[in-house]
């Protein structure tokens, strides 16, 4: 703490003018010397304590996107134009139209660092934050999803982090009454000191209810809605999100936030009632960077000024100082811009729901000489007086140096295709069972059963299906499908292809439900942007995603960047997580995975090639990571999606399942175990049996076709140029899976391999077998 505050003096603008040379702790707040000088230039004096806190937060990597921003213009340039897109990049969350009168808002965000420090509360507040982003667009949140990545499954610290994260997600999400319809659980040693906890939320709104963040209308009232402000996560954004954890993460013990989902629920209901009554001019959620971010972004978006009386903010601790109130990350708060004539109604709605609402300021016209100003008073003295745009929009922008990894060529020639393979049928069977029990491919029920998947009564599909499906309209059956995917190993081998492979997989997962993919969101998890190799991989991933979006003809609607995911000097694998949203005109015609009907033909759609580099097999069986990842073919993905969509519409398929990690072997195993119905298959000719079973070639799915539809399916595939192979037949008399001429594996054998992995690792209540 500076000498000013320890002396109990509030650092006002007047005082800053009078003491221009007072030393300020800008470096400790994460600002560089030249950045500090720029602040002095903007203000024409030294910043006050409160201003310094605000600039340090808003100009941090987390808020300003100062390293990533130069790459994002690609999304705007390459993204296909569509009249579905109602709100895109730069808004709180993307919004896409799904019918004449309904729109959907969705976004994925990271809460990696807080979830490592305090897994339970970190993950819980991650849900709270993304839910408020969706709420701020005018939408009612209807579901969440969580892509999670942890270190080695057997590592003791994973046993600390994973159960806490899962419990935090379920505690907050279940209390809010939101179904958790999918996500991922991935283990890799690269995430040991830096797990990734990403959270996605999706919400629904009538098109006419779309909200925006601009604090427009001079004279309008600025209202703070929700929980009291306390000393939660002060500086959490700049300190927590921008610093790297050393070996002794416990020593820093930063102040983490604790959320209250029941207050959030009241916040949701009160905001929705205010939207429907037309009471709100502008709205912004308070997330990382709290009031600082909300005040400056709403004012900057409108190009107007704002004057706030900070002492009116309801506090949990009376002794809080202005800069602490401005930086606080207390949860469950929203900032509203309200016309004066509607203020009483707004306060009445808040009172009805038992939520605090306080008028704290007013929208001001731009000053004649200095333009719009954000002025914050503290008991009559001015502690902040700056242009809001300088905080929100004019932060530093860096074109960081980029360099491909030095060992890139060596890694590329170290191909997994040359690794020793299972020698005979017996070994193939053993490999299938070992892989099924591996942490990345095993049954994830232990995690997903802790989440409420069916609350609200509109969940059509949830884990373990390929995508989550939610019904939006009971009358028409209109629904949406959502999937998130990412493969850090692929992105490590080739970040451009890795981003496209994540996109392709999410797209395919949505398509196998029969849905039409229409929009993309993303969460880009990377190491330090100051490392040129990390920055290169980031640039490649953004380029890959932007090109992929253009090729598939669906826009990137928004996203989030999380840098500094590393331990010491070692970054995580580049991990672009991509979410794809699809629309289903009638959810009763969606496709689900799993063998069910006796006599259905099993077909393999798409082309299989010997592609094993970066595969789950190479990693699981050989701890090998090298070569080049499977070929991306977005034209083939589109063709496959067309076949699936058309077949779902006219009910040609009884089921469909995407092929990805673990290849055909894993897909067959999951399809048998889904309902315990067996199948007899025969691997086609042309390739090695092992390649058929374990290759991870993209743009593939297995589908089941009821008898009598074969000719129609064949014609549909030919029409769309989708290669197909007959694989076999669903056979309820078969116990498990029979692979003709190779091996048979019973349901019991598969279950015993697939199911016990996670409970054995993480279930503390499990009693040892006697």
């Amino acid at each position, binding site marked *: 703490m500076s000498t000013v505050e320890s002396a109990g003096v509030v650092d006002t603008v007047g005082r800053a003018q009078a003491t221009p040379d007072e030393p300020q702790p800008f470096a400790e707040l994460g600002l560089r010397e030249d950045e500090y000088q720029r602040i002095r230039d903007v203000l024409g004096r030294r910043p006050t304590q409160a201003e310094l806190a605000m600039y340090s937060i808003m100009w941090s990597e987390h808020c300003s996107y100062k390293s990533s921003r130069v790459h994002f213009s690609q999304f705007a340039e390459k993204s296909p134009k569509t009249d579905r897109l109602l709100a895109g990049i730069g808004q709180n969350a993307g919004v896409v139209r799904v019918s004449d009168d309904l729109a959907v808002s969705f976004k994925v965000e990271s809460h990696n660092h807080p979830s490592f420090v*305090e897994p339970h509360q970190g993950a819980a507040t991650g849900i709270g934050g993304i839910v408020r982003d969706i709420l701020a667009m005018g939408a009612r949140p209807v579901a969440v999803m969580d892509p999670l990545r942890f270190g080695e499954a057997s590592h003791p610290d994973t046993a600390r982090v994973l159960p806490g994260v899962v419990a935090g997600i379920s505690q907050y999400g279940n209390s809010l009454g939101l179904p958790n319809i999918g996500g991922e659980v991935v283990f890799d040693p690269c995430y040991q000191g830096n797990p990734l906890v990403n959270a996605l939320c999706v919400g629904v709104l009538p098109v006419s209810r779309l909200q925006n963040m601009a604090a427009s209308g001079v004279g309008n009232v600025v209202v703070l809605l929700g929980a009291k402000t*306390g*000393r939660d996560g002060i500086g959490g954004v700049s300190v927590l999100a921008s610093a790297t954890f050393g070996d002794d993460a*416990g020593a820093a*013990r930063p102040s*983490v936030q*604790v959320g209250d989902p029941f207050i959030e629920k009241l916040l949701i209901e009160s905001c929705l009632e205010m939207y429907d009554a037309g009471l709100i001019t502008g709205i912004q959620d308070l997330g990382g960077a709290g009031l600082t971010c909300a005040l400056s972004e709403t004012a900057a978006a409108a190009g107007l000024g704002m004057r706030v009386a900070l002492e009116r903010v309801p506090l949990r*601790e009376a002794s809080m100082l202005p800069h602490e109130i401005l930086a606080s990350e207390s949860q469950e708060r929203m900032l509203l811009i309200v016309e004066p004539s509607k203020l009483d109604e707004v306060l009445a709605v808040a009172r009805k729901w038992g939520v605090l609402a306080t008028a704290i300021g007013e929208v001001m016209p731009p000053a004649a000489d200095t333009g719009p100003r954000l002025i914050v008073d503290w008991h009559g003295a001015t502690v902040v007086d700056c242009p809001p745009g300088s905080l929100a929009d004019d932060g530093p922008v860096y074109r960081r140096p980029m360099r491909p990894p030095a060992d890139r060529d060596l890694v590329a020639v170290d191909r997994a295709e040359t690794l020793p393979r299972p020698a005979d049928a017996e070994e193939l069977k053993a490999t299938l069972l070992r892989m099924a029990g591996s942490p990345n491919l095993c049954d994830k029920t232990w995690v997903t059963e802790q989440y409420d998947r069916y609350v609200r009564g509109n969940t059509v599909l949830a884990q373990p299906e390929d995508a989550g499906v939610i019904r939006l309209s009971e009358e028409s059956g209109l629904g949406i499908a959502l999937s998130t995917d990412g493969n850090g190993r692929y992105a490590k081998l080739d970040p451009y292809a890795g981003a496209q492979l994540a996109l392709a997989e999410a797209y395919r997962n949505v398509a196998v439900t029969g849905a039409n993919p229409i929009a993309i969101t993303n969460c880009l998890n990377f190491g330090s942007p100051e490392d040129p190799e990390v920055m290169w991989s980031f640039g490649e991933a953004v380029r890959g995603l932007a090109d992929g979006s253009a090729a598939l003809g669906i826009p990137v609607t928004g996203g989030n960047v999380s840098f500094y995911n590393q331990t010491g000097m070692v970054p995580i694998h580049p991990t672009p997580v991509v979410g794809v949203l699809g629309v289903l005109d009638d959810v009763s015609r969606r496709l689900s995975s799993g063998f069910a009907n006796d006599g259905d033909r099993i077909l393999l759609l798409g082309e299989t090639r010997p592609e094993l580099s970066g595969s789950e097999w190479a990693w699981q069986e050989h701890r090998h990571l090298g070569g080049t990842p499977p070929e991306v073919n977005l034209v083939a993905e589109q063709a496959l999606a067309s076949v699936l969509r058309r077949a779902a519409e006219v009910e040609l398929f009884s089921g469909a399942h995407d092929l990805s990690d673990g290849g055909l072997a894993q897909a067959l195993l999951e399809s048998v175990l889904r309902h315990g119905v067996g199948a007899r298959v025969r691997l086609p000719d042309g390739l090695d049996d092992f390649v058929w079973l374990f290759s991870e070639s993209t743009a593939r799915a297995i589908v089941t076709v009821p008898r009598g539809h074969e000719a129609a399916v064949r014609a549909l595939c030919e029409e769309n140029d989708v290669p197909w192979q007959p694989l076999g037949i669903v056979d309820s008399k078969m116990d498990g899976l029979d692979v003709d001429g190779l091996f048979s594996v019973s349901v019991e054998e598969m279950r015993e391999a697939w199911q016990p992995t996670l409970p054995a690792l993480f279930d503390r209540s499990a009693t040892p077998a006697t």
Partner: protein
Amino acid sequence: MTRVVVDVMLKPEILDPQGEAVVNALPRLGAGQVASVRIGKRIELEFTEGTDEKVMREQATEIADKLLANPVIEDFTVRLPDASEAEPTA
């Protein structure tokens, strides 16, 4: 004396949703003058008779730090109750 008492409280800057719920309910009981409620937990550790006081303190502190409290969001105190503090009403 073989008892050590560990008191665990959320750190002052951390939100206590349980305490907030209680303080919001108090006006309905006519206790509207209560401005703030913080809820923690008290743990009583009984050591075997004759354990050295210093050992009890050290072990209780270690137990509290590693198991009873979450030091990221909670503070704890360890004390040996004096004679005036009543024995448990078992």
